[in-house]
């Protein structure tokens, strides 16, 4: 059973669905199949100019409504620190902070972040280049191998402590469960979080 189900509440009765899917219907409407396909392939909606505060700086960008936040970051702004893994909300590689909460930027439309504040891994080190304590802790604890999941892990780890969900190792694992690591660095990630939590308390 798929956990990303088709939207069966609205079965294929959509007009656009018919136009694309059935040349009979398209024909009866007096449209040649070729015309229909060309019409569907071309962007029909306008791009929009939106403003998002990213890592403290207000950025203007032009995006389509369907552009996800991670696409806007990576492709429109060239900020490739945020990674795309599954692109389906399952792996957490694309985790960023939106208005202080961790979200999967692959499941957030850029236009929905309009007027909001986003923090990505590029915004963590201070301007002089000193790493954020969580970045240092990840390095000290070898909390990665290939590093692909790391930007998402670090943002999620910061939120995990801020939310007060880093009480013990089991709680940390539970509240970091949305961030997968194919290299299996989990024990070291937990160790890094414990270290930062303890240094903040101390």
């Amino acid at each position: 059973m798929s956990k990303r189900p088709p939207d069966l509440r609205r079965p294929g009765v959509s007009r656009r669905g018919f136009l694309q899917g059935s040349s009979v219907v398209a024909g009866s409407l007096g449209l040649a199949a070729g015309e229909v396909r060309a019409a569907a392939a071309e962007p029909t909606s306008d791009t929009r100019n939106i403003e998002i505060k990213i890592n403290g700086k207000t950025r203007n960008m032009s995006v389509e409504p369907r552009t996800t936040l991670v696409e806007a970051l990576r492709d429109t702004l060239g900020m490739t620190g945020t990674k795309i893994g599954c692109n389906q909300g399952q792996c957490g590689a694309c985790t960023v902070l939106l208005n202080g909460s961790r979200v999967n930027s692959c499941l957030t439309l850029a236009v929905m972040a309009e007027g909001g504040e986003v923090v990505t891994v590029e915004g963590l080190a201070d301007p002089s280049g000193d790493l954020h304590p969580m970045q240092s802790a990840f390095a000290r604890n070898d909390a990665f191998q290939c590093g692909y999941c790391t930007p998402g892990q670090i943002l999620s780890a910061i939120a995990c402590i801020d939310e007060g969900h880093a009480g013990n190792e089991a709680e940390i694992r539970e509240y970091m469960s949305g961030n997968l690591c194919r290299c299996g660095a989990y024990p070291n990630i937990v160790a890094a979080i414990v270290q930062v939590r303890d240094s903040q308390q101390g």
Partner: protein
Amino acid sequence: MYDFELTRPGTLDEALAALRAEDAQPLSGGQTLIPTLKQRLAMPSVLVSLTGIEELRGITREDGALRIGGGTTHGQIARETADSFPGLSHLAGKIGDPAVRNRGTIGGSLANNDPSACYPAAMMATGGTVITNNREIAADDYFQGMFTTALEEDEIVTGVRIPVPQSSNYQKFEQPASRFPLVGVFVARFDGRVGVGVTGASEGGVFRWREAEEALGSDFTPEALKDMSHPADGMISDLHGTAEYRAHLIAVMTRRAVAAAT
């Protein structure tokens, strides 16, 4: 994703007007709809974002029940019902992961009615009510099979009313890859009645296990279900588990929920 327009109305009335456009569809947290769009399994021409509508958010107490706005996120429900309804708080706090809970909403989940969604089990067990822009629908009538509900086109889930039981518990046997329940059971004990809602198990979607409800009504202990098993007929079989396995889990999860109910 196919291309679409997007509007962000500030009021329910504006949203309803926007939904009258051809092939318009509501967007709440997007945690189900955006993956669906990415797979090109839906192609709305307009998405009407409901997240800017203040009146759809929040939790209030109404005599003996909680009234929860359709746009309230799983995370907010987990945090704000911890004292008033721990069983529901625990359920909401186990949905997906923190990032999913920060965006996903109860209205979106109920509109989607995934056969493994968590809230429907609580709605069925408590005898909850789905509230829309023009009517109220009892849980027993609302859920009509996998991904199918009593909602009409362009009807918005504005909220739910969930009676608060004396004690309750949700047991989720998690499918670790998707983080949805393979089988989830919500048990709710009221004065004179017990509800048992089962999700994830049946090809017909969420359902009430009436035999267990009856047995627990007179003896609210795990032992009351000792010799009871659920038939495998009509249960889901897939690569994660057979119908027999799911049927077995229903009884196990129900007993655990009774034992843990607080």
